[in-house]
């Protein structure tokens, strides 16, 4: 239950799924062009939008494309022509549009899309996992992650404010867990259209971004040559850095109108006096918060750092709040091929020397719909407390696959048979 949902006078409280929340968030932003292609567990989003469109509730061009690659290409072009756009995908669909995802970021088209996290790539699976997000993290997009259905709706609306900001102009992808959030119904405070219009109207007062217009004599997609290429890349990198502070600003703007804040780049839960911290993202944080409350009742000083903005990686604020903590357990819902620990763990580890001696370990869990249960979270907290107490602890724990934690688990099959 999302205790943050506060009824603002006149807004509607509904019990809706994460997918419905995403669809409503997109609808409230009034996109000009929407590209729709289904894939589990996102399908309900585009079905919902199609219904809105069929009932005249959404005045947009709805393109029922023949594949995800076309979905991204269509919205990218519409965005560069000056339009506000939306699309959604997941997993295999996301990677099918990979070339277009890269092109969109390179062209600095302010596209907003939703990705419902699902396992991919490599093994056929129709289950939750953040591997699809990890597979596309270097595309140059801003990545935001939602924990609750309320946050899904709110982040989608905020994503437009961020992507289309004149000082940013970087596409934004909103992630949330498939199956756990996509199909889960929660209480959601659905904002009024006029309030969303007001929130986004700030963009109208800004200078107009470059657009592709007939007879305009401008061309998008010029070759980047040497210094020009570097200049474009540098502008892009700089815009991504700026989006960190911008997202904090936007959170405040949002709170002023809608009366709620989810935090900016991160959310801190009972962290100020914590000795031990779990770092996580997405729906697992709801479970983690519940277990933290129980642990706190028995005197364990544990807190949660919830990553909301994953790209750009919010290293500065994370270092600031983690400095001096005794032990940190990073929970990854994905794998980082070629590294032992999970991806977020590996990324945070790069800043370990700035933490003033905090120790870090990696937990891998929630892969392919293996639930991150309260018992699992307790185990993670206990292990991290052991680390804080100076005990000998595994660097990487596969929480739901204990076989991985056995000694010699990495030995090859041939060795068990007596060698090659």
């Amino acid at each position, binding site marked *: 239950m999302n205790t943050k949902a506060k009824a603002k006078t006149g807004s509607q409280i509904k019990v809706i799924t994460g997918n419905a929340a995403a669809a409503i968030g997109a609808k409230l932003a009034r996109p000009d062009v929407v590209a729709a292609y289904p894939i589990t567990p996102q399908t309900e989003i585009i079905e919902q939008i199609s219904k809105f469109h069929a009932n005249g509730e959404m005045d947009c061009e709805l393109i029922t*494309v023949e594949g995800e690659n*076309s979905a991204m290409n269509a919205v990218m072009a519409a965005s560069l022509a000056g339009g506000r756009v939306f699309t959604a995908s997941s997993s295999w669909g996301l990677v099918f549009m990979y070339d277009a995802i890269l092109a969109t970021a390179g062209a600095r088209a302010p596209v907003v899309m939703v990705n419902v996290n699902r396992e991919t790539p490599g093994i056929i699976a129709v289950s939750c996992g953040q591997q699809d997000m990890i597979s596309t993290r270097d595309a140059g997009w801003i990545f935001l992650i939602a924990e609750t259905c309320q946050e899904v709706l709110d982040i989608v609306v905020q994503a437009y404010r961020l992507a289309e900001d004149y000082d940013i102009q970087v596409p934004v992808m909103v992630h949330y867990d498939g199956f756990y959030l996509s199909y889960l119904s929660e209480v959601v405070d659905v904002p009024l259209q006029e309030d969303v219009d007001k929130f986004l109207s700030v963009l109208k007062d800004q200078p107009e971004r470059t657009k*592709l217009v007939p*007879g305009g004599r401008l061309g998008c997609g010029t*070759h980047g040559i040497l210094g020009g290429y570097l200049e474009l890349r540098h502008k892009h990198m700089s815009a991504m850095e700026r989006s960190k502070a911008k997202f904090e600003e936007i959170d405040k703007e949002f709170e002023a109108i809608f009366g709620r804040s989810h935090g900016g780049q991160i959310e801190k839960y009972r962290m100020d006096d914590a000795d031990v911290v779990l770092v996580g993202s997405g729906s697992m944080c709801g479970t983690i918060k519940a277990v933290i409350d129980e642990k706190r009742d028995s005197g364990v000083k544990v807190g949660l750092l919830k990553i909301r903005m994953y790209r750009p990686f919010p290293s500065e604020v994370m270092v600031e709040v983690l400095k001096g903590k005794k032990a940190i357990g990073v929970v990854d819902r994905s794998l980082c091929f070629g590294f032992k620990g999970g991806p977020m763990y590996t990324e945070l580890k790069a800043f370990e020397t700035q933490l003033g001696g905090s120790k870090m370990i990696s937990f891998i869990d929630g892969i392919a719909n293996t639930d991150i249960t309260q018992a699992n979270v307790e185990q993670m907290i206990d292990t991290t407390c052991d680390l804080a107490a100076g005990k000998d602890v595994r660097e990487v724990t596969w929480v739901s696959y204990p076989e991985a934690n056995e000694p010699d688990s990495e030995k090859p099959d041939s060795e068990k048979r007596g060698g090659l």
Partner: protein
Amino acid sequence: MTEKKQGKLTKVLDYLKHEDPFSKGVAFCPGCGLELLLRFIPQVLGNDIVITGTPSCSAPVLLGQNNQSWHTLSYFGTLMTGAAANATGLARYYRKAGIKNTVVCFNGDGTAADIGFGNLSGAAERNEPFIYICYDNEGYMNTGIQKSGTTPYGASTTTTPLGSASKGKNLRRMNLALKMAMHKIPYAATATLSDMGDLAKKLLKAKEAKERGFAFLHVFAPCTTGWGYAPENTIEVCRRAVKTNYFPLWEAVNGKIRMTKTVKKPKPVSTYTKLIKKFAHLNEADLQILQDDIDYEYCMLGGLSALEGECQLPVSSED
């Protein structure tokens, strides 16, 4: 001294109502069919077209370098895999915003027939409001003359080269234009550079048809470098392609096919192939296979156009 015989300026030049928006000095091979086509299109359709281009022989000229451009058209340079989807996004947004436009999605046969066919077919099925022009030089020329889906039987390319175990491409080409006509779009047509008046008319028909939905033009544009013929023969190669029924000229309105030029006594395909080095290795038996393929396609076309009166696509009030 005899009086100089005064002729009349060809009426085809009347179609060139607009400026040529391209710089005079651009990097196309001497005699390039693509260059002729690319300069022709905006002179007929206007300089306010929005043209999309992908990696291809047209890319080094259609797309700029850093801030600078080779032409004054609004363009969108993107990938082969999504060219038609890009054009869809542009055309749909302009429609939503009430911006008058002619989006021209300009691609080679590599994009149209192969890597970008999926989204071309999707855009046609959805009847998207833009013009798709495929310039067919029968291969991936920009990367160095590799075979494509429209490369004809027997042609030598760098991925179907001649060798002790190979006589060039041993597969028949696919007929892209006919496939597109079967999408029941408002307009599909073939055209080439030896019949520029016909090409101009078809460009204008495509522009008009775009108001009702998808328009597709398949333009036969030979490649002197890739095919191996003297640059001066570019137009003659087109002419012979038409005269041998190697590349018949037809159009389809709402899927109804009619020939726009009927060749009464088509010459054998060897009249065409003997001009071009990529066919030079073919013997009589090989040429017969190519001839049979041409005849089969023409027979299909002939049959479909003969049904003109019989097969009617009901025209809805929105057409």
